[in-house]
């Protein structure tokens, strides 16, 4: 199967860089899968699970905030927070949900409120999906 270059970067370091066959990315407006030869594409991320298919068994990584860019050189995911699923502490998500709830109560106008509640829903879905 054709491979392409995939890079996963967090503000603190370059987490993954290598050839992969497929990556499923949780986009703001829905998940999308990237294969070799994907058209140039930029999407923001929602908190969710990113799946990397390479030579080994698929790797599951929780990402939060940031964006994905598919360019001529492959896929680059810039995420604010990156944690492999098996290293994730349940507290982290709980804390994030708590923050989102606070944002929702603090939201000044309707637009901010919409955004905050959307964030909260996304985090809840993530929490359920991981079964914490």
């Amino acid at each position, binding site marked *: 199967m054709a491979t392409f270059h995939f890079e996963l970067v967090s503000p603190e370091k370059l987490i993954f860089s290598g050839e992969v066959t497929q990556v499923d990315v949780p986009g703001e407006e829905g998940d999308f899968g990237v294969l070799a030869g994907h058209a*140039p594409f*930029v999407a923001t991320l929602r908190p969710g699970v990113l799946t990397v298919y390479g030579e080994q068994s698929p790797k599951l990584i929780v990402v939060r905030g940031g964006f994905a860019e598919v360019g001529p050189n492959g896929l680059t995911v810039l995420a604010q927070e990156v944690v492999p699923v098996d290293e994730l502490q349940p507290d982290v998500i709980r804390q994030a949900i708590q923050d989102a709830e606070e944002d929702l109560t603090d939201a000044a106008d309707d637009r901010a409120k919409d955004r905050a509640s959307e964030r909260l829903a996304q985090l809840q879905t993530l929490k359920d999906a991981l079964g914490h």
Partner: protein
Amino acid sequence: MPSLKDLRNRIASTKATQKITKAMQMVAASKLRRAQAAAEAARPYSERMQRTLGSIAASVQNNPEAPRLLAGTGRDQVHLLVVCTGERGLCGPFNSAIVRLAREHANRLLAEGKQIKILCVGRKGFDQLKRTFEDEIIDVIDLRAVRQIRFDTAQEIGRRITALYDQGAFDVCTLFYSRFRSVIAQIPTAQQLIPAVFEGAPADGPTPVYEYEPDEEQILAELLPLNISVQILKALLENAASFYGAQMTAMDNATRNAGEMIKKQTLKYNRTRQAMITKELIEIISGAEAL
């Protein structure tokens, strides 16, 4: 003329100072390694961020509804200078070099009749700037309690800046920090944060046509504030590495100077000792002759 005991004490105190500077140099060297790794690890993120934002920004360049963080307020009157320095001294010209660059920038703006506001990140910069720009400094962010610079640290500062911008407190924001090139070379740098500038963005070859999801404006609205935090994080990490680099060099020099001083003082001590012995001998001999 100082007595032998005075000279001995002086040598001992110089030796103690040398031990301290030597220890500081070694501590700086070991911290430098970690800070340098952190600064280098953070580079890919900020570079890619700039590149991607640059290509998105180019596509909305002429759109009148482009986000204000990108297009600016349309004015150029009030400037915010964010001056990132270290929290500690004993690091050679590290802090003063950043402050000097910021001060030159501020004076130039003032000469042009612009208004300036200064946000100090790090206590040392504040100490040096408060003499000349006390009224212009709006706040000091103290990072002494922060042991390891993480994204949250930068995000907090970034949020403050964007909040100020949304209130209309300034039109242009410039970030001052020291870029880490090597242990002996740290380059004080000024980087414009708002309105965002993207260097070396799309120029070479045909840029591919990107599809956006959600649309460009929404992506920009989300990413521009994030980019500010990322640039601040980069600045703080580069600063930390530069700081330890500068401190290491400064302490290396101090150790060497102390060594030289000890050599000179020991020479003086030995000469004085010999002179005293000679004097005592003369006294004894002439006393014996007189009998």
